[in-house]
């Protein structure tokens, strides 16, 4: 499969995808291997360099690495190998940390997370280096299973594409957070299905873009059964001539009564030359549902900036504080304090560079 064999922007689901950015990332010359940093947490630590496991630097615990079913997503199907986390009923796993290092060109990797009934897992992933890193993750949550997953993109260049296919069983819970705070393009492409009654899904995060980068998220949450809850809270911050796009859809099947679906999409333009696209979408076929959505794009509050400066805070720092406050509620959804602090620090580092 060649890099040129990519979808087209004419397809609605790929309208804001930076296909040129993917091709350019795949053509990046080799760069030195950047250092992998794991958080100070117990549990599995996997280091993948260009999609290959570095055995010596990894501790697998319950995770295995091998062949994986490729699926049929136009980008996701490129991954034929990957890692698997499979938990039996009622198992509680230590966190699984994965660092993906890219050293140029393209790399593809799949993942399968299968949680038995009432089991609990936490996955933390990070992307560093340069190149096109393409990932395809399939998640299956049994009855009452709980997964939290936090992904941060801090590559120095290139592109990260994520395809997540997540199916929640009855009363299962998934909390996913993505932070794009690097100098790479990004596409976060996800399909969540609440396939059992009473499922709970949160999927959100923040895209921080600058220069001429393009980052987007395209998420579709499908409520197939009654009494489900979903929250999509996304923040996009665009500086320079960059473009950040948020497309979030909620689909409620005829049968899925008492669904509570919330979408909050907000964009912040740090420069007038930047672009934020927002596309909230509701497709509701049931009649007894509660779905709220909000979508707004704005600039930093000039009055607040002057107020802060009048107290002695320099302009750049005032802008950073206000911007950080803007993305904070998306990152505050991360329950683990160590992980949350690391993500907040990445966002702060981005603001230092961008402002």
């Amino acid at each position, binding site marked *: 499969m060649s890099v040129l064999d990519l979808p087209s922007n004419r397809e609605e689901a790929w309208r804001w995808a930076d296909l040129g950015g993917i091709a350019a990332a795949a053509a990046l010359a080799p760069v030195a291997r950047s250092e992998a940093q794991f958080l100070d947490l117990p549990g599995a630590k996997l280091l993948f360099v260009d999609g290959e496991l570095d055995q010596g630097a990894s501790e697998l615990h319950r995770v295995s690495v091998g062949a994986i079913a490729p699926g049929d997503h136009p980008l996701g199907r490129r991954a034929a190998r990957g890692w698997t986390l499979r938990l039996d009923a009622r198992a509680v796993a230590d966190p699984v940390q994965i660092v993906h290092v890219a050293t140029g060109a393209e790399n593809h990797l799949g993942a399968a997370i299968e949680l038995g009934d009432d089991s609990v897992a936490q996955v933390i992933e990070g992307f560093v280096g340069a190149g096109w890193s393409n990932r395809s993750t399939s998640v299956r949550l049994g009855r009452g299973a709980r997964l939290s997953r936090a992904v941060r993109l801090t590559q120095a260049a290139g592109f990260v594409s994520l395809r997540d296919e997540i199916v929640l069983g009855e009363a299962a819970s998934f909390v996913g957070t993505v932070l794009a705070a690097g100098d790479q393009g990004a596409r976060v492409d996800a399909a969540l299905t609440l396939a059992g009654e009473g499922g709970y899904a949160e999927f959100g995060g923040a895209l921080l873009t600058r220069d001429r980068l393009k980052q987007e998220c395209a998420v579709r949450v499908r409520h197939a059964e009654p009494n489900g809850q979903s929250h999509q809270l996304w923040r996009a911050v665009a500086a320079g001539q960059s473009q950040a796009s948020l497309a979030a859809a909620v689909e409620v099947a005829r049968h899925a009564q008492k669904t509570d679906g919330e979408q909050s999409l907000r964009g912040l333009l740090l420069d007038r030359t930047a672009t934020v696209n927002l596309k909230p979408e509701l497709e509701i076929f049931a009649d007894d549902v509660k779905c709220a959505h909000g979508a707004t794009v704005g600039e930093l509050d000039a009055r607040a900036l002057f107020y802060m400066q009048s107290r*002695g805070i320099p302009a750049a720092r005032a802008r950073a504080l206000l911007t950080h406050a803007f993305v904070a*509620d998306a990152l505050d959804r991360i329950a683990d304090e160590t992980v949350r602090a690391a993500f907040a620090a990445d966002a702060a580092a981005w603001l230092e560079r961008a402002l």
Partner: protein
Amino acid sequence: MTMLTIDNLHAEIDGKPILKGLTLQVNAGEIHAIMGPNGAGKSTLGYVLGGRPGYEVTEGSVTFDGEDLLDKEPHERAAAGVFLGFQYPVEIPGVSNVQFLRESLNAQRAVRGEKPLSGAEFLKVARAQADALGLQQDMLKRPVNVGFSGGEKKRNEMVQMGIIDPKFAILDETDSGLDIDALRVVGDGINRIMRRPDKAVLLITHYQRLLDYVRPDRVHVLADGRITRSGGAELAHQLEREGYAEVAA
């Protein structure tokens, strides 16, 4: 000793002249009241001294402690010792009062070459000021001014002034929206923080009543962008009795 000298100050907003040749001198150790009708340019004067973008000085000069104030960025004016108490304090969702004030104080200290205060040191100072001004401690942790009543916002301005401990304060209608008890607390606060031989205050107010608590050394009438009259504390009483139209003309 002269602290602030405003000489023939002209300023405009969106090309519209608001200040039209304002001249004023404030010495260390003095409290000056500025009174005047609505729309006279009182808040504009405060914003121009603070350096708010969009308020363009077209003529005249402002010297503070012997230096050109108008040449400095807003945060540099703060570090030089100028504090602006806002008529309408701004709400900042997502930034706590504590974080805001600690950042403010430490940014000013950095410019002056002083060591930053630690979180614990800062909290001690902040708690003492909140207590003195009757602002509930938990409001320090809340986002800046978000959900505060009008009176709480004004107390919060004074708490900020107490923490920052400026050399010179411009207080823009700090008394509006306060009931009589709050007025006394705020008045006491201004006296406690600012009534010192090495400090000075420009007290912008609409009413005489704050001046019962904070006795001004000088009172000026600002009308149509200029100081039209100056006098002692008794001028404020005369204004209250006779109205601006009579006295300022």
